[in-house]
Structures are given as C-alpha cells and as structure tokens.
C-alpha cells in the first residue's frame, strides 16, 4: 500500500512540472494584463508600461518562468497582484469556508442521493422510481447559479427564514480560531455563532449539492438495479437468507463501487460549482477569490490555484482508489 502511495506521488511530480509550464504560458498569453486590470480607467499606455517594468512583467518569459519555478520549489507561491498578500495565505484563509460548504453539499448529496437511488431501484418502475428520475433530470439540467438565485429569492427574500449571504451575521461577535466557523462556535462555546454559521451554509450547500445529488441518484439506481439481478443475489435468495441481509450485505455493498468513484469525481466539480455559488451568496471562499483572480488576471493566484487543485485532485483519486479495497475485499491495491 505504501509503495502504491509513493509511486502515485512520484508520478505527480512530472505532471505538475508540465502543468506549471503550460499554465505559465497560458495565463500570459491572455489579452491585457494585470496592470490594465488594476489601473482601470487610469490605464494609459505609459502607466501600463511603467507598471509592467516595475513589476517585472516586461522581462523575457523564460526569465520570469525560472524565477517563478525557483520560488515555487521553495514553497513560495508568490503574492497576489490584486490583494498584495501571499497566495498561500489567501488560500489558507478562504479554504476552510469552501471545505465547510463542500462538506454540507456532499452530506446533502450523499445523504439524500444514495437512499433515493436505492429506493428507486428497489421499487423499479413505480412512483418513487419515476419521481427520482424526474428530480435527478431537473437537478442535472438546472444551472447552479440559477438554482442558487431561486433558492435565495424564495428562502431569504420572499420568506426570510435563512440568511441571504456571507458566512455569518455581521452583527454577531464571534471568536475565530480555525476559520471553520461552525467548528469555531462549538470550540469556544459560542452556540449562537455556530448555529448562525450553520444557517449560512444551508442555502449555498443545497445549491451546490444538487448536481452531485442528481448524479449520485442516477448512478446508485443503475448500479443497484444491476446488482439486484445478479446471479449471486438470486442464489442468496434461493438459500433463504433474510431479505434485509441480502439487501444490506449483498446488494448495497456491491452497488457502492461505482458510486464511490462518482463521489470522488464530483469533488472536483464541487470546486468549480463553488465559483458560482459563492458569488451568488457572497460566500467568502476559494471560488469567489478565483473569480476575482480571473477577472484581474492575477497570474500568481491563477497559477497557484490550479497547481493546488491538481494536487488535491490527485489525492482525492488516490483515496478513492484505496477505498475500493475497503468496500470490496476482492479488489486489492497493487
């Protein structure tokens, strides 16, 4: 197992290296530049040229690249051009927000998706099945930002039962330790702050979780349908095993493999969905920060973010692969 992990990490190095070159060239080939974005109406050609010179954007690309990679190897992701803060620090303060949001979205997607898919398959062709298919189709086709707007309009404006934006009520005096606001509230015993932070997660969590939910429903349904008609299930039934045992130990467990793979893949999608959700709900996470970086052509942030996501993706996939052997002992990691 350790060897597998080691090999995966070793493979990651050339991938990241290649990625860094591509990224570097790509962000610099975009029209305009950070100086234009920063100066706005004041961007006269002379001002842009002087800023480019002072910031070092006018030097040969190769020189710029080696400076960048040299720093990167020392763990220095550079400084955000927009905010003047180190990129890593920016990620560190915003990442907890996105993790909180993603966790809520995943709990919603898995907690509702797997049972719904399972019952749809179990009652194949009946009402539960049809409605789950329709619901999941809606979930897949409705764009995240639209859903976010509708949820916000209905539950924060029309019937104001949930907060419309942000991570916490500005008037709440909360102590922040870990930057996971719900956890902070629990750790400090500020129950109202924890509860308030949790309420702020519900609407964006629902909006963000809907697409993975729909996909999980469909995959679970298809997988359970296939497994429950498998020979070994028929054999188990013929043996006279309890229906509960058959469903729990044979059907559900065997049907979970493709579902787990899907959940792993969805994690990446959640990050991109977070860009839209966080914008609509003014939620201060990685997604909103990335959007600003794209509009401002914030080179160091864009580069740092994509490398960071690549590493994250690689690790999620590794964990998914390793989890196969837990779910299905026949699969052995080699």
């Amino acid at each position: 197992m350790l060897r597998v992990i080691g090999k995966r990490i070793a493979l990651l190095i050339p991938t990241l290296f290649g990625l860094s070159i591509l990224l570097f060239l790509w962000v610099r080939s975009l029209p305009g530049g950070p100086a234009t974005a920063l100066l706005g109406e004041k961007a006269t050609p002379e001002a842009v040229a002087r800023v480019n010179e002072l910031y070092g954007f006018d030097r040969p690309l190769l020189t710029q690249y080696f400076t960048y990679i040299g720093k990167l190897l020392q763990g220095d992701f550079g400084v955000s051009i927009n905010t003047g803060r180190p990129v890593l620090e920016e990620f560190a303060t915003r990442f907890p927000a996105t993790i909180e949001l993603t966790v809520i979205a995943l709990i919603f997607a898995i907690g509702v998706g797997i049972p719904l898919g399972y019952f749809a398959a179990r009652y194949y062709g009946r009402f539960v099945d049809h409605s789950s298919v329709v619901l999941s189709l809606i979930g897949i086709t409705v764009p995240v930002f639209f859903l976010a707007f509708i949820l916000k309009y209905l539950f924060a404006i029309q019937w104001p039962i949930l907060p419309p934006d942000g991570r916490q009520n500005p008037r709440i005096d909360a102590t922040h330790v870990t930057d996971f606001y719900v956890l902070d509230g629990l750790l400090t015993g500020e129950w109202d702050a924890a509860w308030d932070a949790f309420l702020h997660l519900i609407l964006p969590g629902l909006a963000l979780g809907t697409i993975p939910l729909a996909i999980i429903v469909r995959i679970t349904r298809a997988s359970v349908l296939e497994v429950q008609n498998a020979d070994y299930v028929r054999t188990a039934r013929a043996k006279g095993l309890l229906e509960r045992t058959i469903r729990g130990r044979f059907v559900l467990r065997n049907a979970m493999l493709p579902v787990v793979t899907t959940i792993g893949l969805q994690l990446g999608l959640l990050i991109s969905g977070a860009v839209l959700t966080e914008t609509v709900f003014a939620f201060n996470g990685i997604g909103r920060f990335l959007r600003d970086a794209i509009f401002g052509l914030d080179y160091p942030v864009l580069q740092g973010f994509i490398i960071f996501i690549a590493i994250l993706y690689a690790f999620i996939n590794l964990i998914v692969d390793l989890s196969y052997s837990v779910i299905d002992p026949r699969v052995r990691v080699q």
Partner: protein
Amino acid sequence: MSNSGTPVRPSPAKKRAALTAGISISALLLTGCVQSQREENTGTEGEGAVDTTFVFAASADPKSLDPAFASDGESFRVSRQIFEGLVGVEPGTADPAPLLAESWETAEDGLSTTFALKEGVTFHDGTDFNAEAVCFNFDRWYNWTGVQQAETVSYYYGSLFRGFADSPEEAVYESCEANGDSEVTINLAKPFAGFVPALSLPAFAMQSPTALEEFSADEIGGSEESPTLSEYALGNPVGTGPFKFDSWEVGQQLELSIYEDYWGDKGQITNTIFRIIDDPQARRQALEAGTIDGYDLVAPADTASLADAGYNIVPRDPFTILYLGMNHAVPELADPLVRQAIAHAIDKQALVDQTLPEGTEVATQFIPDVVDGFNEEVTTYDFDPERAKELLAEAGYPDGFEVQFNYPTNVSRPYMPTPEQVFTNLTAQLGEVGITVTPAPAAWSPDYLNQVQGTPDHGLHLLGWTGDYNDTDNFIGVFFGQEKLEFGFNNPELFAALTEARGMTDREEQTAAYEEINEQIAEFNPAIPLAHPAPSLAFAPRVTSYPASPVNDEVFTDIELSE
C-alpha cells in the same frame, strides 16, 4: 496477560455505540477548550434605543488600509472614516474646506502655502498631530522609490505631484517647514493651482508618523511580480479620524469603532462594519433581508422599487461624465463632418431618461457644472436626425456606414451602471440616421480596457470618469491632454492649451482658460459628452440621513439613525 478462548468480535451495534460515545466525549472535551474572545455587555441597550452598529455593503475589499498607497473607491470609503487631511470638503460640494488645517494662505507666486493647524488633535495611537507630523507625511511621499512609485501603488501622488526625490526636475513638491507646532509651510518647486483642493483626497490624509514607522508602512515590493502590502496597510492604520480600525477579515468584513478622544462631533454610530458583497444583485438582496443598512451604486432599475418598498434612496450630485468615444484611427470617424453627424444623431435626453439613474444631467461638455471652467455658452449639437443625415451625405456617406461599437459587459461604474442598456439605446439612435454598428462587447477588465485604451482596434466606445476633486485638469486633462490610442488624434494646439492651463497660478485666469478650452473641445468634437450620471445609495428605513457628497466625502459620524 494471556487470554485463551475465542476472541470476541464486537457486534456492529456495539461498534456504533462506541463510536457515538467517543464522538460525544471528544465533542464535550473540545467544547470550551478555546477561550471565547467575546466582550461582555455588547449591545445591551434598553428597549427603543438606537442600534449604534452601522453595516454598509462594500463592493470589494479595500486595496490597502494605507490611503497613500490606494486609489480605489472602496479603500477611500474606509480611509475617510479613519483619516483626515489638512483640507476637507465643503459638505455637498466639491470645494475645499478647513479640516486639520484651520486656515491657509498661499504666497503670490503660488509656490508656498502656509497652513495653520488645528490644535489638540491626537492620532489613535495617542501621539500628537502637529506640524512635524505634517512634514513627516509630505517627506514620506516625496522619498518613495522603485515600485512605491508605480501607478498601481501611489497613483495620486505620482499623477499630481509628478516627481519624487530621485527625479526632482519633474517634482512639484520641494520642501516642508514646521514653524512651531501648529504652523507648517509647504514649498512647491512649480506652481500647482490645484494644490489645496488636491489635499482633500484621502491619498494625502495625515497618518501617524509613529505608526508608519513601527509597522514599516513603506516596506512594500517584497516580490518579483507584485508588491506586498506592508504590515501597516494590512492591519495597523492610524489616523486622526472619528473611527479607529478594529479588524479586517479579508473578503468578509472590516470593522471600525468610534475613537473616544476624537476632537470633533462623534455622532450616533459607535461601530461600523463594512460587509464585502461584490455582486450588485446580492447587495440589494442583503438590504432587503436586513443584514445590511445600506449600499452604494444602486442599479437604476432598482431605485423605484426599493423606494416603493420603504427604503431610502439618496442620490449624489453628479460629479461624473459618460462619453461616447470616437476613434479617429477609423477613417470615417476621422472626418469632422461624420463626428458632427453622430453628435446630431444622439438624443441625450432620451438616453438619460431610459437608461440612467434619476438625477442624471445631460452633458454639454466633459466636466460637470460645479467644476471650474464650465462654459455655459459652449457649442452644442442638438438632436436633429435630419441634419445628421445631411452631414453624412456631405461627408460622402449618403447611405450611412458601418462601424464597430465597443462596450463593456457585466460591470457597473459610477458613471455607467448598465453599459449594455446604453449601448442598445445608442445603437438604435444611430440606426435611425443610417449608421450601422457592429457590436463588440467585452468583459470590462482587462479585455475591454485593454482594447479601448491600449490598442487602436476599436471604433465607437463607451467610457467615462468620476472626478476626484474640484480640478478641471482631472477631467479634460486626463482625456485630451496628450495623444492617446483611445481617441487616436493628434491636436498639438489642444495639448498645448491644456498644459498651459494646468500650470497657471491665478485661479481666475485659469478658469477663463478652461472655459476657452471647453469651447475648443466642443468645436473639435473628438468624443461626445453624453451625461453626468448621478450615482445613488440605498438605505434601510432606520437610516434617516446620510451625508451624500459628489466627491464621496462621506464620513459616517454624520449619519442619523432612528432605531
């Protein structure tokens, strides 16, 4: 210990129970293990008392808490609460007024100004504000080097004072003399008629010398690609203003609280929270949901419905200009007859009524009427489609022509809340006289700005400006003071006139010169001034008064709250 016999495997139910117990115990252990930093007795006013916390939605984080290293509206909105300059602004106007300087006198030659300072003023760190502190600030600006001089860092000092200690031949500033504690003389190397009004800009606010040094305010430029903010700019700004800095959670909110030893009237508000909400729609919804007390740059389409719902809409007097640029590098647009035809083809009043906020005024020239040099008798091109068609025919385009029309998308600027609507409206008007436009939309930043300002590849385009203070050069000098790719013309006569006017020391003489220049521009017609849009703010019903200022000089001590 040996234990023979069959090992007992815990049942799944037992495992679950153990896990639940474990989690509960660890949760209990964790709870309260970190000290809450909550202050006791916050918000314990009696019933019916006013909630003295004011929450305002900002569209972005400040770029820097050090106003000398900032040039954006959101930085200045915050620094206006924390800092004060020598010179303030007469409420509701753009004219200079005493602030930290109670009076001033400029020498005949315009090269030195002596300020009498207010006494008994202290910075938030307890140090005294005096003549020495003033000189410290002026010398600090003058001695910046390297990346500190970049337009993205110190835009206002660079563009108004023009040079630094390492380039004294261009510099406007020369030296500062403290005459005792409460009098200071600033000597200039060149006359600068806008010197006193310029000092009302937050970029030239007085900062505590002790704090600037302690938190290394000038230590920026830590990286190859971009300057890092100093410790001072990140979280230790110290001024003399009514509010002092408390905390800043980037992307989330910034908190200020009242400075107990403030020399002036402290007003009702004790705590100010700037909540960062970048999406305009989300700002409106936050107001409706009651999480904020107010926000800026209300979309024109929202003002009526918000007012009907009981919110207070506060318009600012316009201090803006929206214009239709015409790139002279396009052969058709280089023809003065064609430019006149376009000017006659546009019904500015209809444009204002249909696409711009209430309070917007139709523009006849490139400065609002409160700015010196506004010419009442300037040449105008009235809306006259027939005349436009005649002019086009005269220019050799009896059937009109086709031209690219560049406009930005998904952006609101104070002078242009909804560019798409302005574009659609103008397209229809130009179509009436036979000018067909090819739409060229682009994302505001950096695509649009780059294309329009940095390349000759554009035709007609929309752009504008928000004035910083009462200075004519800050409008027309910026637009037409030199050859630019944006307009693509070379008019040495105009450039020379603007340079000369800028250097004049006598204000009356200068005003007359600008009146003439405005006429000169109107005749040359390089671009069409469309409107002076009035940005407005929206507030919760409990905000009964807000000190709207054309130049955004809005200090929250003047806000009145009813509950």
